[in-house]
């Protein structure tokens, strides 16, 4: 473990990620108000009673931001989960398969790479109607190739080591080798990729909800808040800026965390 140092991106990113997680957790036990139309003036700017103001339907903005953190994390966890559960075995399989078959898998992977997350999600919502779950699955599928590719390159390095050769000589089958040697060695890469993909999922969900294809009305989401602020921008810009900042900070957090973690796990790469 020598040479591993905590770095600034890891710490700042980690803090931002924790903040989003904390907001989501807090929302389960406390929100300043209920998520409903309140008998108070609409479009208030931040003040003592409504710390982040109220929206054009007189709902408390801070309440929505806290509840929206749940949606954001939920989307990220499911999308990244789908991608990792399918992508990691594909990557390992491609690395361990003899010649042609591995190439074949990766070619297929490259073609799926041409389907951007957002495009796939829009297409799915055309077919199945919009909704958070559809969005998550589509974003997950579109992220599979990224996992498969990075896991394959990590696995290829492990497979050519002497201890894997020794393990093979000792009579261990491919499944045992994949589980005992390959998986533990690529898990770092998977976590880094998960962090980066989490950021992509957050961006895609925000965009979809903004387009009205993601999280439905009546369910708090940062992207939806942006959509709902659209017609009152000229007089209440804070209604776009606050959820916008929440999205940007969450994405920044996961990006920094991923970058920092990569440097932490592989100090040789630091600063590149």
């Amino acid at each position, binding site marked *: 473990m020598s040479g591993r140092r905590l770095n600034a991106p890891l710490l700042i990113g980690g803090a931002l990620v924790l903040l989003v997680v904390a907001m989501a957790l807090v929302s389960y036990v406390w929100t300043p108000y209920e998520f409903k139309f309140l008998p108070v003036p609409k479009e208030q700017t931040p003040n003592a009673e409504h710390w982040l103001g109220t929206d054009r339907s007189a709902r408390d903005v801070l309440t929505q931001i806290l509840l929206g953190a749940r949606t954001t994390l939920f989307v990220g966890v499911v999308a990244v989960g789908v991608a990792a559960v399918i992508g990691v075995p594909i990557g390992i399989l491609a690395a361990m398969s003899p010649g042609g078959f591995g190439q074949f898998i990766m070619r297929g992977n490259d073609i799926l790479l041409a389907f951007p997350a957002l*495009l796939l999600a829009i297409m799915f919502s055309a077919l199945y109607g919009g909704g958070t779950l559809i969005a998550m699955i589509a974003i997950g599928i579109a992220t599979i190739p990224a996992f498969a590719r990075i896991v394959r390159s990590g696995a290829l390095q492990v497979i050519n080591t002497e201890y894997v050769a020794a393990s093979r000589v000792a009579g261990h089958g491919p499944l045992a080798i994949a589980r005992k040697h390959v998986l533990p060695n690529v898990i770092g890469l998977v976590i880094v990729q998960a962090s980066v993909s989490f950021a992509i999922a957050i961006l895609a969900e925000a965009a979809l909800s903004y387009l009205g294809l993601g999280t439905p009305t009546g369910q708090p989401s940062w992207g939806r808040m942006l959509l709902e602020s659209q017609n009152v921008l000229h007089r209440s810009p804070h209604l776009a800026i606050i959820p916008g900042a929440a999205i940007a900070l969450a994405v920044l957090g996961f990006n920094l965390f991923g970058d920092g973690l990569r440097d932490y796990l592989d100090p040789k790469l630091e600063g590149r």
Partner: protein
Amino acid sequence: MLLRLARRFLVLLVSLAVASVLVFAFMQVLPGDPARVALGMNSSDEAVAQLREQFGLDRPLLVQYADWLGGVVTLDLGVEWVSKAPIAPQLVDRLAVTGWLVITAMVLALVIALPVGTWMAVRHRHADGVLLSAISQVGVAVPAFLAGIILITYFAKRWQWFPSGGWVPPAEDPVQFLLRLALPAISLALVQASMLARYVRSAVLEVLREDYLRTARAKGLRPMQALTRHGLRNAAVPIVTVLGLQLATLLIGAVVVERVFVIPGLGSFLLDSVAARELITVQTIVMVLVAAVLIINFLVDTVYLLIDPRLRVGHR
């Protein structure tokens, strides 16, 4: 090298074919009857039967696929299922609008990112380099449509320097064209420039560590001279690869930004078709976008081959 190019081209054709099968298949896994989905759940059985008959939805899937793909290749796309408007002319018009937007954004992003990224690399141990680097990291985290919303809020609504949306073709009124292109192009470019600047930074940093650059310095060239004369060409190789990927993300980013600025491009066409449940139109637009991404990747590979002499000799 010609052989390598030919092989890459073959891979492109196969990829396009497989992608078209995927797009078609995604549309077929739709639960229920596509004709009923298109017309709405409350439509009459006769109307559904008529639509199925008119567009040959009763034929075997393979025949439908071949028919559709043939149409896409020859740009003979027929009419939309519900509105009966011809698809091809709309597609061409909208593609032109999106093309203007994406290319302007890409050029803007390059103009910003190349000098800023190089500066970030050269000054990576100084406060200004670190600060720029941090700003670019934040820029990457801001989605383009959010940048668009903020730009509209201030530059269009509050200060009224620019129109808040809409589109005027360049031939009709060049000044209005530029005014309406400015904000959407800038919102796409800001995000792309942040991303690109980070890649330029790491590519230049990589080159700065090379021995030949030290040799160039030792012959008496100043740091910037050494970099411009020997370094940038080498740094260009990884940057070109990233440019291709970026062009693809720009294309998709444009889908949302077009909605923010009410621009009648390919993205708005796609979203309108989704809303109107014009499934065949959605299928065709998705195919066009995926094909664009694959073709861009092919072009990047080609350029890559041309600018990196090491790749020309024939070994991988």
